[in-house]
């Protein structure tokens, strides 16, 4: 065997070794959670965390976690928030992008810069005074208020929409106007349906953020019986239940399942969306 061939084999062994190690480290914390979620309390107390459970059909932990963390209500609230926030921010974001990319008017650049500067302000720091505004609006513990606040369009989605509009030829707008369409008509009848790929990208980027949003949900939806979301529901396990890891792990797995399903179904779009969001510079 030649040395070149030897070298190539060694490199590919190293390559697969690092890949397997990386994959192993990525799933290990999650796999251990799955294992623990299927253990009975006695098993949990007596066996090592890495030993497999006796039965993979012991669902008591999941039932317990579901009812103790109020997960039925949590999923309902999260779905409501997700649907309205996505609809709201996609509609407003794409409308703004249409105006900013197509119309030339005084203040166009100014408004772009307003959004650009806003993206520099760290979100959590802002909550110190946003809280005060939400408080004076009476929007603490008020789901529609929370949804409106979350709709505040972020620069990334506006940017993706603007980018997309730039690539749609003007001739489409032109022929619509010739046929007597108004500007509103141009947007809603002609351009909006063409935005589909950009909408998918924004839905993924924003959807992940909204579903996982913990800080603002915890701050503005304090009524944990009525207004709990999937992300905040797990907080139930910090108190006296803090050591019952068989329940906690079951709860963690439950919150992960929707993400896993979406991931398996739309893997391509998720990767594509992230890459599109990244190559923005």
């Amino acid at each position: 065997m030649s040395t070149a061939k030897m070298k190539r084999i060694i490199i590919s062994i190293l390559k697969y070794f690092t890949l397997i190690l990386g994959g192993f480290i990525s799933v290990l914390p999650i796999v251990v959670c799955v294992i623990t979620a299927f253990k009975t309390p006695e098993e949990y107390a007596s066996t090592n965390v890495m030993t497999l459970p006796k039965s993979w059909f012991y669902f008591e932990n999941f039932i317990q976690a579901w009812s103790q963390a109020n997960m039925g209500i949590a999923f309902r609230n999260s779905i409501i928030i997700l649907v309205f926030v996505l609809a709201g921010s996609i509609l407003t974001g794409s409308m703004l992008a249409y105006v900013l990319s197509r119309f030339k008017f005084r203040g166009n650049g100014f408004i772009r810069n307003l959004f650009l500067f806003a993206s520099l302000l760290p979100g959590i720091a802002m909550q110190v005074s946003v809280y005060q505004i939400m408080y004076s609006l009476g929007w603490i513990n008020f789901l529609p208020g929370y949804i409106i606040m979350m709709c505040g369009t972020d620069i990334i989605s506006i940017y993706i929409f603007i980018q997309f509009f730039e690539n749609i030829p003007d001739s489409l707008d032109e022929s619509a106007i010739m046929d007597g369409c108004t500007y509103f008509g141009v947007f809603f009848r002609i351009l909006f349906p063409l935005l589909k790929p950009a909408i998918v990208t924004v839905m993924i980027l924003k959807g992940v953020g909204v579903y996982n949003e913990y800080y603002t949900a915890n701050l503005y939806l304090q009524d944990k019986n009525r207004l709990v979301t999937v992300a905040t529901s797990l907080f139930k396990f910090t108190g006296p239940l803090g050591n019952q890891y068989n329940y906690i792990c079951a709860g963690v797995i439950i919150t992960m399942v929707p993400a896993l399903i979406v991931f398996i179904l739309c893997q391509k779009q998720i990767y594509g969306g992230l890459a599109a969001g990244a190559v923005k510079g």
Partner: protein
Amino acid sequence: MRTGGVKARPAFYQRKECVGFMNEKKSFKAWITSGKVNRKLCIFTFMFVPVALLLVFTYIPFFKMIGFSFYDMKYIGEREFVGLKNYLEVFTRQDCFQALKLSLYYIVASFIQLALALYFASVLSFKVKGSGVFKGLMFFPYLVCGIAVGFIFKFFYTRGFVLDTVLQWCGFNLEQLPYWLRDTRINNISVAATSVWRYMGQGMVMFIGAIMSVDASLYEAGDIDGANSFQKFIYIILPSIKTIIVLNMILSITGSLSVFEPPYVITGGDFGTGTYFVIMNELAHESQKVGLASAMAIVLLILIMIATMIQKWVEKYYFGVGDAEPLREVRKRKKRLEAKGGAR
């Protein structure tokens, strides 16, 4: 991020040219659909909601926060003007300053994360068996919500649990192992590692996207010249995606200054793991020192602005903006010309 200017658009998007549509009748409907009015109406209605949201939830709070930072106040009740006292306190308080130092751990962590992401991205963008599976496994942590990550790692690091067991398999003795979340020598590293775990895959997917957009003919040319994978990485991939790498490095500095979730959820900021935002959150919402918390936010904002300005400068210096040449090249040429002139 550059948003660019407004491209030249057809006449009907300009103010003076949008004379009217087909409708000539004088009615309300005709008026509303006439070019000029319709144009204004469209601009106004389409911008109203997003701009209003931006003002109410970003700019009004922002200016209010600047105001708050000069007061000693709570959310409700009396407030007292104290001038710059809050700012002085930010720099003299032990916990605030300590917290800023913690950012260093996260900066190092995010550089490690970028390096790993770059490594795996370049490995996976060549032919690898099961690349889809590896990519999926390493990416999935990004989709797990922050608080779940917190619980997963609380469990992972607990004495005698997952990490300790794995290390014992590798031959370590439990007695020698530290308490991962309590030992102040190591706990910040443990917590920062969780954010590497969570975000490495996202960086990897981003880099894969960037590498995929590299012109494939470059690789073919490399193959013809007999380049191996390592050479291809150094001479083809790295130069093509350096902009996005530098961008991410600077973003990770701003990100590291504003770390919040990992320490908040995993340790609650105990045992010296409270980052700047954890402290700020505590001050604002638990001890209700709104003025001090606002001052902290403003100080951080100034730091982030400085980092961003450096980023803009680096971008201009090394890569040029739009069609403009990078400043570095211009200066090099100038120097060369001067040297030539001097020799003569």
